Every structure is written in C-alpha cells, then in structure tokens.
C-alpha cells in the first residue's frame, strides 16, 4: 500500500515530447511506472519509447483510449494552467504539475476550477510523487529510496532527496514521497497529505519538510495535535532567511513578519512533533 500512486496507476504525461518531458518520462518509464500515454497537441498518432507509448493530441482522447488515471505535466510555465485545466476537464482524478514559474493568477483560477471538479492536484513547482518499487510520477530520483514505512511530504525538491538518501543510508525506506511544491497557491497541502498517510496502513511514521512562508505548517501542526496517531518528524528550512526576500521558491517569503521558521517550529513542537536541526538528522530520529 501507499498513497496516491502505486503499481496500478495508469500514468499519462502531458508534454511528453518536450526536452524535459522526454527525459523525465523516460526515467519514469525505466523505473517501471505504468506509463500508458503521452499528450502533445499536434503530435497525436506518434509513438514514443521504442513504439511502446502512444502520443495523443488531447487528454480526453488519451484517457478514453488508455484509461489513464494520473496525469503528470511537464509543459512550460505559460501553458501549464491550460494543461491542468485540460486534465481536470477530462476528469483525470490525480494531476501532478512539475512545472516551475506558473503565474499566481493562473493558479488562482486553476484552483477554483479544480475545486469544483473534485480532482487532486499536486504542485505546481514540485518534484512529484514516488512510491518506491511501484510508481515514479515526477522527477524524484528512483534510486535514493526503497520501500519502507515512512511517509514523506515536502515543499521542496533536493531537500527531500537529501532526507530520503540519509534515510536509505540508515536502511530506512519510504511508503510514498509527496512533493507538494514551493508555490504560494498550489494543490494538495500538508494536511491533505497527512490525512492520507494517517489512513494508509503501510505508513507507520511521517517526515514533514516545510519552509518559511505562509501558514500551512502551522495549520498542519493543529491537525497533527488533533487527529494524528502516527509520529511525525519535521524539518523547517529558512531559519536564517531574511524577511521580505523570496528564497528561490515563489512561496518561500516572510511577509509582514509572518511565516517565519521560528513560528512554524514552535507550532509543530507544541503539537508533539519532533524537530530536526538539519536534514541529515531526520534519519536518526525515525523509529527503526
């Protein structure tokens, strides 16, 4: 078991023929992910990966032909909103948008539309999902973790890889890794993911990696205190970040003194979450 994606996921890739898309789609394919279709408007009818994966002109056609139930998006930022809306309109139940740099206004509209459709969105500006040994849906390197009982949820990319790798070095694997993304307006949040992990019988403990900006970690702290029975270990990046500056991620900014690492760490501690000082420490705080 796992959350969101597994061996049975039928994955469609929007932007499969682009540079980034092709590279990462191939990685996904090689990992053993069940990639059933690609979508690139204007290239319908082509086949990719030694003729194993068909390319379609639209998500709707691809879904009807292949039964795809997950879409992962690699299209450039200015077309990403359109891609997300298309996938949602085709009622793909899980949409994962890797693209970085999507305008906030686009995301506000996309979210509003998706909320009416009852589909899950992960991202944008995220590394995607990885259920070790089953499905890699996004860009998380496949060889840095193995199947295990730790659910990992994070706003960051390489920081998550660090943690997974440190866990692997200590012989600890993960159930599913979820990169929820670094944008201020995005899909799945910490609470949504924690809820899924809490309900997943294969997940026994959770690692949560947050950062400055917004108040999702504080809301998650409240959720953890009220509802979580599984232990949570957290790391919050950005203790040394100056206020008012966007630290790489569009959402990583301390505004009007709010969204600091201190307040997040405090809220989580109060909720009984163990806080790691640095990413490598997390592995030693997990239960063997």
């Amino acid at each position, binding site marked *: 078991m796992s959350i969101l994606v597994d061996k049975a996921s039928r994955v469609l890739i929007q932007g499969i023929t682009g540079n980034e898309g092709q590279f990462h789609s191939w*990685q996904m394919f090689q990992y053993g992910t069940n990639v059933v279709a690609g979508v690139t408007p204007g290239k319908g009818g082509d086949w990719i990966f030694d003729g194993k994966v068909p390319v379609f002109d639209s998500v709707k056609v691809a879904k009807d032909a292949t039964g795809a139930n997950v879409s992962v998006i690699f299209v450039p*930022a*200015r077309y990403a909103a359109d891609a997300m809306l298309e996938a949602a309109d085709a009622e793909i139940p899980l949409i994962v948008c890797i693209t970085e*740099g*999507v*305008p*906030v*206004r*686009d*995301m*506000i*509209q996309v*979210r*509003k*539309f998706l909320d009416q459709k009852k589909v899950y969105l992960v991202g944008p500006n995220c590394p995607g999902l990885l259920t070790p040994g089953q499905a890699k849906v996004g*860009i*998380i*390197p496949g*060889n*840095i973790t193995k199947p295990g009982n730790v659910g990992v949820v*994070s*706003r*960051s*990319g*390489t*920081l*998550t*890889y*660090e943690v997974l*790798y440190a866990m692997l070095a200590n012989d600890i694997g993960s159930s599913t890794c979820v990169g929820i993304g*670094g944008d*201020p*307006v995005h899909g799945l949040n910490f609470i949504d993911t924690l809820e899924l992990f809490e309900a997943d019988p294969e997940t026994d403990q959770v690692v949560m*990696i947050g*950062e*400055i900006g*917004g*108040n999702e970690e504080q809301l998650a702290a409240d959720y953890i205190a009220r509802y979580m029975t599984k232990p949570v270990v957290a*790391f919050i*990046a*950005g*203790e*040394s*970040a*100056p206020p008012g*500056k966007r*630290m*790489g*991620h*569009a*959402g*990583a900014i301390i505004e*009007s*003194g709010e969204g600091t*690492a201190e307040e997040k760490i405090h809220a989580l501690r109060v909720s009984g979450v163990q806080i790691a*000082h*640095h*990413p*490598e420490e997390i592995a030693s705080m997990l239960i063997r």
Partner: protein
Amino acid sequence: MKLHEYQSKKIFEQFGVPIPKGRVANIASEAKQIAEELGGRVVIKSQVLVGGRGKAGGIKLAKDPNEAMKFASDILGMEIKGLPVRKILVDEAVNFEQEIYLAIINNRSNNCPMIVASASGGVDIEEVAQLSPEKIIKYNIDPLLGLQDFQARDVALSIDLPRVYWKNFIKILHGLYHAFWETDSTLAEINPLVITKDERMMALDAKMIIDDNALFRHPDLIEFRDLDIEAPAEVEARKYGLSFIKLDGEIGCMVNGAGLAMATMDIIQQNGGSPANFLDIGGGAGAEKVSAALRIILSDPKVKVILINIFGGITRCDEVAKGLLSSIKQTKIKIPIVVRLVGTNEELGRRLLCDSEILTADSLVSAAKTSVLLATGGEL
C-alpha cells in the same frame, strides 16, 4: 517586481483610479517648472522602493516653485535606506479631510484575491494591524466572478464611509481590482485614499508588486524594472537563470535546490558562521551555470570561503564533480572551497575532487563546520 509610486499611479490612472496632477522629474529645475504648471504648492516625493520615505525626509511639501526646486535638489542627493534617489514625483498638494487604506492582495490560505481596507489610512498599516486589528477589514473575492458591486458596497459600509462617497468609492475599488488583476499583481495598494476638502476622492500614494512569473505577458511592464534596487550580482545572476540573494556574511554558498540552499544557510548559522548569499543553481549543475555562480559569489569581497553543496540525483555526482572541477579551474579562485557532494556515485565524485585543492566533506554539518572554521581564520 516592485513598482515605483509614479509607475503604479500611471497604471491606476489607466484603470480609472483618480490620482493628483503631477509628473516625475530627475533634475531640480524640472521640479520648479512642474510646480509652476501646477500652481505653486506641490509635494516632492522621492521615488525609491522602500517604506518610510516620509520619516527619512524623502517627502516634502513646497509652498512655491522656488522651494520646490530647493527640496527637489535636496531629495535628489539623498540616499534612503541605502538606495540612491534618482527620481522624484512632483504632485499637486491636496488638502484632505480623511485618509483611507485600500489594497488588494492574494490570500494564500483561500487561494483568491482579497480586499484589505481600513478607515485608519495614511499610517503604517502593519502597525494598525498589530495594535488594533479590528480596524482592518478583509474581504475575499471570487477569482472567476471578480469584484461585484454589492461587495464594494459592503467594504464601504464596513469602513463607515459616508453614503455620498459610495458611488465614487465603488468606482475606485473596481478600478483598483482591475488594475490588480489585469497586471498580474500580487499587491495593489492605495495608502492613503483621501477625501479632499472639496469632496473628491483620490489616491495620494500608490504601490504595486507584479508577479515575476507573469511578466512574459506584460512586456510593457518589464521596462519598469528598477535595477538600482537590486545588487548588481542579483541582476547578473538572473541572466544565467540563477536564483541569488545577497546577504551580509562571509561564507559564499552554491547549492542545487531552493530548500536545500536555505537548509545549508541554516546549518552555517547554527555552527556560528554567517552565509554571504542564497544561491540556487537549479538542477543539473551545468558547467556554464557553475562558472557564472562562482564569479557572482566571488564578486563579493567579504566572502572568505565558498561552500558548495550539491545533491546528485538524476545528474550523478561524478558528472557534477567534473563540471565543478573545470569551472573552478577556469575561475581563478584564491579562497578555500569546501565541497559536499552527496547522492548517486558520490564516492566516485569525491575521489575526482580529491585530486585538486578542493576540500571535501561527507556530511552537511562537517562541511558547515569546516567552512566556519576557515572563515574565522582557523586552521584545519
């Protein structure tokens, strides 16, 4: 991207938000001429992208054109919070009775635009928010419907605006909302929106922040970028697609990934050092980017050590190491470099680096400790 007051006012005017008569100038004699055109009494306002201009002496009321010229010349020579004043806005002086705060921002928690309004305008709104939060009203807007008249009336009501001004206020709020939405702003703020002695309403000040990710659809706004407010290194970094923020410390950082870059800075600080910058070189760590990043870090004379922290995932560590080596050789570097490479093929990568004068570390903590030690003049 932050816009200057005069730029924001230009946009407001296009969207039907009334502003005072005025013009921007960059020499004092021009200010005198504008003052003459506007009838003598004018406000001279420094155009710098920091708050607290008034307190710093960057805003002055001149009673006649000669005084306007004098104040203009004073202000044009000033530096406010480290930023040189290169432009001033010369606006007609307006007598007003009431000051209102009115802004649109994005509400991150509800994923929609939000109106923020207060009858206590004209002061630092963050102070009002802290001291008397009940004086600030917040109102979410449906992004697909946009602002509706009844919502604008609700806002007018909740700030106790006299009924005679409602019609005008609703028009201004619609204008502000459209300005916000159409330009992909993340902030559109009027502080203060005043009611004048002759019963008009106008925006005496204006502030806008445009979403950098949306600039591709606003080519006209790109010209508004003020390179003065950014450190030259930040401008240079943008050219190479590097995310760079200059800080005050002594340890230069080069990291792949924003979260990991922040974590690296945190660990430096935890170990008694201070980071000189935030720098995310992104995925792949290609040779051109690494070289550019090294040059940018070295342009800061305060930097005593460089800490490179790379996680090799899909790009293997041996490839990263090769890239680093060639870039480091190309860029003549006299200060110590500490590299922490971790991930796929890390042993191979580290062994490649061992052949050179680069110091390698196998954990983030030890990399940070070594860097701090070297930055404080210690020996290994």
